């Protein structure tokens, strides 16, 4: 069992597995997103309070969830790389950063467009929106720090440390709607006992969430291969891999 785990630390293994996995992840992502969009836009009933505007949740919630998941992945990968000196961790962290940042931007923009009809304003300085904006700045900080060093390995380590320091923000974002009075609605899906959303609205949302995650995985695989190549350029295994 542990050999499989050790192989994850090997750049050629990761390179090959990512190449094989990406198309499958992308195909299932497309299916899940396709179903989610159609069901969510056409078949789900309109909300009695928000009307059809609530359908924005089908892109906003997955984007927001992924922005947090992606940052946590970046911090975890960086931590693994720093503690156990596994260089693939740095490649994962570097690959996931731009993806996560784009989802954070998506969450902010869709949230803003949703806020206008619902709360009457495109923006409010409430805890969740503010901390999500801070998350975007944290992503930018990490992505700016990495290339600032002449030695790329040093840049990787510095960026990893910064990502770890910033990960404190993630639980703050997640719990901000419970800790503070906020415009933003409370947790909808996390309550396992009795979700506050009827099934016809919930299923497309879960499908979009799954679809976005699979999509993230697919794009991560593609970027990861590039990051691994950049770090392993002159290694022996690369010669064979690039020829194919």
């Amino acid at each position, binding site marked *: 069992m542990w050999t499989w785990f050790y192989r994850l630390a090997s750049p050629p293994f990761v390179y090959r597995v990512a190449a094989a996995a990406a198309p499958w992840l*992308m195909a299932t992502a497309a299916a899940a*997103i396709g179903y989610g*969009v159609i069901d969510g*836009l*056409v*078949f*789900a*009933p*309109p909300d009695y309070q928000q*009307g*059809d*505007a609530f*359908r*924005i949740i089908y*892109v*906003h919630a997955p*984007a927001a969830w992924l922005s947090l998941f992606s940052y946590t992945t970046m911090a975890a990968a960086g931590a693994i790389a720093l503690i156990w000196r596994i260089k693939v961790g740095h490649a994962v962290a570097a690959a996931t950063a*731009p*993806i996560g940042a*784009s*989802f954070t*931007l*998506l969450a902010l*923009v*869709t949230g803003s*467009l*949703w806020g*206008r*009809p619902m709360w009457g304003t495109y923006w409010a300085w409430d805890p969740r929106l503010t901390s999500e904006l801070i998350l975007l700045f944290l992503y930018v900080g990490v992505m700016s720090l990495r290339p600032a060093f002449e030695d790329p390995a040093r840049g990787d380590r510095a960026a990893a440390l910064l990502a770890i320091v910033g990960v404190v923000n993630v639980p703050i974002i997640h719990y901000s709607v419970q800790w503070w009075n906020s415009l933003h609605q409370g947790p909808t899906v996390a309550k396992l006992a009795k979700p506050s959303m009827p099934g016809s609205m919930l299923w497309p949302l879960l499908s979009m969430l799954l679809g976005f995650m699979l*999509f993230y995985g*697919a*794009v991560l695989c*593609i*970027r990861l*291969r*590039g*990051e691994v*190549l*950049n770090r392993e*350029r*002159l290694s022996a295994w*690369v*010669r064979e891999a*690039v020829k194919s």
Partner: protein
Amino acid sequence: MNSGGFWSMGGYARFVWPCFGFAFAVLLWNLWSARRFLAAARRRTARALMMAASQRS
């Protein structure tokens, strides 16, 4: 079933459709940007290997 009209989204069209449009754009950008990144990495690696090989010979 959707009662507010599919394209008009019950009057909220100018909020809902840009959201989905931007989401689609972000997903596409991610895919395009990742593939471009990988292609550039492969090119740079091939060039580095070629230079190393020519230095050895």
